[in-house]
């Protein structure tokens, strides 16, 4: 069962590089392993994601569940959002414009 924390924290902000999405996500995972605060990822430069990036997203979601932190994705385009929906990953993140 996923338990989400609701206490107010200042999220860590990461910008995902559209040219190296998988690497960016993996770096985020590494940071999460270190400090366990909420995180906000800016997807505004991500046009599409590939299977490796999806794998990294799945790992990120698992890590967030494990550490009970909230991962918010900002500015995800509809095409990428649809991929996350198809992979049933969308419910594991929070989305903001």
């Amino acid at each position, binding site marked *: 069962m996923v338990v989400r924390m609701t206490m107010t924290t200042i999220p860590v902000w990461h910008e995902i590089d559209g040219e190296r999405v998988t690497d960016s996500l993996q770096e985020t995972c590494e940071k999460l392993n270190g400090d366990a605060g909420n995180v906000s990822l800016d997807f505004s430069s991500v046009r599409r994601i*590939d299977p490796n990036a999806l794998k990294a997203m799945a790992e990120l979601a698992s890590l967030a569940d494990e550490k009970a932190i909230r991962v918010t994705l900002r500015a995800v385009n509809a095409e990428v959002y649809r*991929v996350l929906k*198809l992979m049933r990953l969308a419910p594991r993140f929070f989305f903001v414009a």
Partner: protein
Amino acid sequence: MAENVASLSQERIAYLEGLVSQARTAAAVFTQYTQEDVDRIVKPMVLAGLEQAQYLARLAIEETRLGVLEDKALKNMVATEFVYDYVKDKRTVGTIREFPERRLVEVAEPIGVIFSLLPITNPTSTVLFKCIMAIKTRNAVIFSPHPSAGHCCYEAVRIMYEAALKHGAPQGVFTCLESHSLEDNAYMMHHKDVGLIDATGGPGMVKAAYSSGKPALGVGPGNTPVYLEKTADLNMAVVDIITSKTFDNGTICASEQTVVIDDEIYDLVLKKFADLGAHICNQKETELLGRTVIDPSTGFMQPLAVGQKATDISRMVGLEVAPKTKLLIAPIQGVGREHPLSVEKLFPVLAVYRAKSVEEALRVCVDVNRAGGLGHTAVVFSRNEVVIQRFSEVINAGRIIVNAPGSIGALGGIYNDMVPTFSFGCGTGGGNSTTDNVNVYNYLNIKRVARRTPAHMWFRIPDQIYFNLNAVENLGHFPSRSTIIITNPAMEQIGHVDVVRRYIPAETLVHVSVIPDAEPDVKIVAQGVEALNFYKADQIIALGGGSVIDAAKIMKLKYESPEADLEELAAPFLDLRKRVVQYPTEKVSRARLIAISTTSGTGSEVTPFAVLTDKARGRKVTLADYSLSPDVAIVDPQFVMSMPKGLTADTGIDCLTHALEAGVSIYASAYTDSNAMQAIRMVFKYLPIAYEQPQNEEARSMMHNAACIAAIAFSNASVGVNHALAHAFGARFGVSHGRANALMLPHVIAYNASVPTKFMPSPNQRGYIAHKKYAMMADLLGLGGNTIDEKVKNLVTATEQLLDQLAVPRSIAEMGISKEDFEKAMPDLVKIAFDDPSGRSNPRMPLLSELVELFWSAYAGRGLAQAAGTAEKQTEKQKVDEWLCV
């Protein structure tokens, strides 16, 4: 499914889940690809397939021991080059087709994960074909090869996958079960993440696919009948049949199975077969063949014979044939289990049948078609188009190949312009969902983006309208040899008929036909038509009120088109433009109809409607068609100066109702609005004067024009629920139409101005506007009010005041109808009002319960109109109600 997969180990399930997960990821990622991305991947795949065509053919032959190397290589080339030629310019991503005239766009949506079963007979070519289709449509495929063709299929998938991946396809887009069982297939077919099953295989697999509950494309067995008709080009036919039946040793399921040959050419055809290397079996050989290559217990072909050479089969059976024999031809005398060779034979054995007539030939072809090949393929060789057409009609096959080889013809793109495929849809006859040559469009969900299309509107009026005092003089402009004046006794008594006659050119033969002053019935119409025929009339002048003009319209219709069936023409319709029954356009006679109205209400002189009473059946028939509209309308107030006050009031209110209802109708347009608004203005100004001062020429003239103008509006925009209520009530209680309208009018305005319980579909309007239209009318009349709500209320009040001025009864109760009688009549009233076509153009859809409320409002009379709020007010109230959750 549970029992089918119970034997699967946890490891096996994990393996299968891994394949699905991989494919699902690829399919999800693939959704982001553009058409250009996809096309960039497809071409190198095709080239890779072409490059390896012979290699893959060799692998297939070595593994399956079926078919012919050269033919399999050729199939691999067709599966790549020909399929590419078909798909290369096709749009399969985003917008794929546009129909601007219909404002429709088709947008592609990938399926996702496809589970694909592969056959033993065409293993590698089917892989190449399906891989190209899948990439072109952005789908991922999990392949499941036939157990005896696993390696060659795996290699074909690998070659395609590597080429695709190298050029940008998502990882995991193709996977292939390395070895598998029926349980694996069952697991996959039922997997929630598999979107489609594409089953190219034997009947068992196809059935399993369709039974899985998943959308499935499937092919099944064929049993291709061939009709070789006597007019055919025999040399071409014989070569085509041999080419096809021996192609890859007959493994293509579309190949010929039984050739039905006309008696006249039978011997010659067999000789030609023999000359080209076929062995014609004698009766004993045929029996031996039948016993050996067909399993007597099942009636199906022996798997050992599939894809083998004719010489090998001969050896297997024990026949002595020439070493270069290509084909074994076995004459049969019928179709069915007692004629074993009449079934599908995927090897070079061909049954032949001698037919004594075309009928017999077609019957035998039907039998062959239905003996296991329903929906698949059939072939006809003939130069006789009638024979080809009849064959096409009686045979149930997705592909009917004309004057070409069955197997190669069915593949498409070589002998004809069919879509190249390696998967033949067999329609419902074969338990399939399509009869298509399966292609890229079968691998897509096609979304239709339908933009709102405002229906075409119209504005139709008679050719000529003459109005104002002495307009009747214009009759002199219409030459006629023989004219009939249709009128009623009153018009003759008052002298109106004499006035009309005065202006008809002197050389015209004039006959006057006087009909009763009541709605016309069938008998009256028949008598009128008889007179028109007797006098060979070329002109009809209708002089009277609505009943007379309606009678003349119907007489003209029957005179010009005697075959017109009035009852059929009165069939109900929803949209005039889409009506089932069309009015006749062929005419045996022609007569100009000039309508001179003597009342200022119905406007029948310009409308396309006519009401006929069918006394024998005790009902009224309403005819509506623009062909009924008079050719000429004369709106001359001299004919209404003597109207009594009551008639002036009733017809004037009818005119007002026409204008008000046309104004808010769902068919209202700027064209009809201009007429409706003008008529409303004129009625409010001149009706009270015409009523109080019957000899006031200006008022009479204006009201006469108002009636015509309102009729022009409702002829093109129709009326509404007020008329539906009035028709039902007036007929039941014998109340004149205008008076019945008056009783309903204020209540209907209030009703239409309020928030509809149910909106009427109206593609021509943007939102609900009836209340705004009423407000506009109130503004036009200068009634004041600051809000729409106030303006509507003022319109209701002004209407009530007008009715008071005209001294018409203001409630049904006032008319002496008891509450009990009214209550008793209510079920019928509501039913008739609901069925009345007038209600279908009302701005809000009247519910049965609302019709009851409207009737009771009219029964109670004034005061209830005010109780109903307008749209604006109710919207506010609704907001409050919602807030309070009441």
